[in-house]
């Protein structure tokens, strides 16, 4: 009987702790605690990560190490060439577009995106197998803010979902809760890229206005304001087209190998625009009595240099 009552007390205490924790989490009151914890844990994670990296880096078999190094260099070269190729194609397409409009010098100057960046080291990942989130060792102190795009030399990684003084959580584009406005490089058809659990990305809502070819590159379209235009997302590996459907779909293999990310770049000069929040605010401010009217949202540009 005594055993039963002590067990009941334990259960009640545990339930209380969880309920209080959940309520505090919903109210956002746990953010300081979480920040404090990660602030303390981040240096430890960094040390552990570097220790593991040094052990793996040294290796016991020299051949393996050489081969791995060569493979890494070749992959890096392929990535660089692919990105360069994509960039040149984009410049060409942009040039064409601008020529058609004739006023390119004023409205669409040929510019190269030179966003300021912060190099962050991946020090930890999500402790469960469902979500695709990374923790990097840069935060508010280095100018990181929520929503900033995160990339590697190969392409888009994701965006900053939460940020602390010396850490930031990055939601990867492969997470099922992630979606990115995208454009197919050759056909110029637009759609939405979404993550799928343990699988390649899927591009949906692609209009039936033209054919999509396997191997076509997929880039960020800049629509929605979360990512700058023209970043590489991946490559089409399968097309799902049916004439009776209003849209076609494509399976896209991400350009980034998410299993092997070690360092990332955070585009600190790109200011993401929360279009949904802006529209909601607009709706609320327009009042209940009159029909909602939308006025243009002030656009913010990424830092660009001619």
């Amino acid at each position, binding site marked *: 009987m005594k055993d039963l009552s002590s067990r009941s007390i334990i259960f009640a205490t*545990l339930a209380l702790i*969880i309920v209080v924790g959940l309520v505090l989490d919903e109210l956002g009151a746990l953010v300081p605690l979480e920040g404090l914890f990660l602030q303390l844990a981040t240096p430890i994670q960094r040390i552990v*990560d570097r220790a593991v990296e040094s052990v*793996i880096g040294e290796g016991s078999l020299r051949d393996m190490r050489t081969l791995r190094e060569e493979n890494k260099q070749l992959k890096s070269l392929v990535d660089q060439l692919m990105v360069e190729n994509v960039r040149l194609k984009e410049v060409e397409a942009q040039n064409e577009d601008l020529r058609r409009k004739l006023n390119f010098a004023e409205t669409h100057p040929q510019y190269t995106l030179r966003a300021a960046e912060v190099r962050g080291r991946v*020090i*930890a990942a999500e*402790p469960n197998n469902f979500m695709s989130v990374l923790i990097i060792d840069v935060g508010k102190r280095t100018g990181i803010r929520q929503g900033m795009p995160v990339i590697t030399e190969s392409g888009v990684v994701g965006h900053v979902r939460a940020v602390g003084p010396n850490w930031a959580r990055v939601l990867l584009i492969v997470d099922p*809760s992630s979606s990115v406005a995208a454009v197919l490089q050759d056909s110029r058809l637009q759609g939405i890229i979404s993550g799928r659990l343990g699988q390649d990305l899927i591009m949906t809502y692609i209009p039936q206005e033209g054919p999509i070819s396997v191997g076509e590159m997929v880039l960020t379209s800049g629509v929605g304001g979360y990512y700058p235009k023209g970043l590489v997302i991946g490559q089409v590996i399968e097309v799902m087209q049916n004439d009776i459907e209003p849209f076609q779909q494509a399976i896209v293999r991400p350009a980034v190998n998410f299993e092997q990310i070690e360092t990332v770049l955070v585009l600190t000069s790109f200011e993401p625009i929360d279009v949904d929040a802006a529209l909601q605010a607009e709706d609320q401010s327009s009042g209940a009595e009159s029909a909602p009217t939308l006025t243009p949202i002030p656009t913010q540009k990424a830092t660009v240099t001619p």
Partner: protein
Amino acid sequence: MNVYLAILLLFVLATVQSTILPRLTVWGVHPELMLMAVISWSILSGAEEGMLWALIGGILLDLFSASHFGLHTIALLVVAFPSGLGQRTLFRSDLLMPLLIIPLATLGYELVLLAGLYLTGWTASLSAYFGQVVMPSVGANTLLILPIYLLLRAVHRRLHRQEITL
């Protein structure tokens, strides 16, 4: 077991799970060290200590995770209690015990996480969940439970011996 020692040990495990284990992939998933440790300790020390480990370990995982606070804690508590009931049986030191319990515990743990994520608006296809995460996790954790269990059994015996000496 001393609570402070448990917190320290579980902090180390949480750090390893979020830092080192993402580099290790078994059947496409990362092994769940905290779950294996909590289940092992529940088998060795009973439901009450197992639940204490689940509470501390769960909170640590929740602090490392981007998911809603409490999700890992609830999932670990749900599986720690039934796993600890086996402690009073004659087979508690049998190596078969963790091998039998861990697949069921992993299944329960993943399903609670899944339900929690669904309730908080995170969606993906159920067939993908089962095919790509739940079933491979059951396999990976079953494959790796014995080293963890044996290590914790050694710790448990050492602590138990110290208590008897005192």
